């Protein structure tokens, strides 16, 4: 557990560093601003709609779902990779079967056009 403590220290330093910088900036900079500055940065005209009123392409959602599938696959690969010597031929064959099943899915989504952006 002690080997993970430095991560906490680094996190604290990152947060403190930013907080200190923001505090210093708050003391130094000029106060107040024109209300125009608080509008979303767009074209100069008053905005009729905000970003949160809009929808975005379904493809991003699809990419996220595909990512989850493949990321879970890499989770299975990690313990196999680190114990490769001990698992030897048995582990190699097992993992090739696993990857073969995955590749079938990969070819399927490729053919269905899930990886085509436009």
């Amino acid at each position, binding site marked *: 557990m002690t080997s993970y403590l430095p991560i906490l*220290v680094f996190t604290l330093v990152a947060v403190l560093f930013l907080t200190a910088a923001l505090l210093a900036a708050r003391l130094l900079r000029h106060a107040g601003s024109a209300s125009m500055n608080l509008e979303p940065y767009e074209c100069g005209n008053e905005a009729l709609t905000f*970003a949160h009123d809009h929808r975005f392409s379904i493809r991003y959602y699809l990419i996220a779902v595909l*990512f989850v599938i493949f990321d879970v696959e890499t989770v299975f690969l990690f313990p196999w990779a*680190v114990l490769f010597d001990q698992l030897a031929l048995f582990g190699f064959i097992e993992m090739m079967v696993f990857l073969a099943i995955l590749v079938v899915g990969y070819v399927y989504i490729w053919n269905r056009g899930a990886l085509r952006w436009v």
Partner: protein
Amino acid sequence: MNVDVVVTVAKIAVVLGLLLQVAPIMVWVERRGSAMMQDRPGPNRLGPFGLFQALADAVKFLFKEDVTPAAADKPLYLMAPALALLPAFTTSVVIPWGPNFTWDGKEYAFTVSNADTGVLLFLALASLGVYSLVMAGYASNNKFSLLGSIRASAQLISYELAMTVAVLAVIIPVGSFHLTDVVAYQRTNTWNCLLQPFGFLVFCIAAFAETNRLPFDLPEAESELVAGFHTEYSAMRFAAFFQAEYTSMAALSALGCTLFLGGWSLPWLNYEGMGWLGVALGLGTLLAKVGVCMFVFVWVRWTFPRFRYDQLMRLGWKFLLPVALLNLIAVSAMTLAGWL
């Protein structure tokens, strides 16, 4: 006082001290390097060769107006820059910066955290970076920001897959997540970039995409999205994103050097027998390698045009992922045959 604690604190101080220097130095390198490649002088007013430019920038960041848009989601908007700095800083805890050293008759590894999860920890912390981009883009309630952040999230997760699989291929012959073991492996054999050229290629391309650098800077894409996910950020909060980008570039370069370019070691040189001099030389060697990588980041920026978004997705899913998987299969088969 406990010697272990003193050593750990010393290591933290050294690494943090180095990390905090990255952004100011890179501001200068990036701007002077860009100028050199475009045949113009670049910043040359402040100090010799414009070396104090970063200092002037810091002063400007402190005095600029800090805008929080009225329509923004305030808590998320304020949290995003801090969350961007977090992975940038924490990832470098697992990097070995030099050979082991002895203090009070006890041997210590020159890594801040000697956790067994090593490189896995790096990948886990690095992938947290996507949260800050999504948070910043969503909370700004600006159309450019939102487009930039959803692009960023799709890009980062797509290239993370290829990168993870490329890293895995390095782990197989080593058999350990400890990066110190990866360096030791490369010292007894040869650099991994020669043993696994395809893995190295995939890692390099994915590294550019993971740090949102050209030719993959679509989340920012100045010519289309103003400044992408950080359009609404100004002053010190913008500086935080800026610093996070450079620091994570350095951390990722350090990981790349450790995995593929021999880490702190050089062929035919043995730093381990030299005591503290060896430690300093090892640190210097790794820093020199990271410096070269950082220059390559700038060099590539002015060499390649930006990808179109569909090209980016095609490259990630239809080229890098299959290549990375084939590389993994090839490396594991060769390890099984005893060639690696």
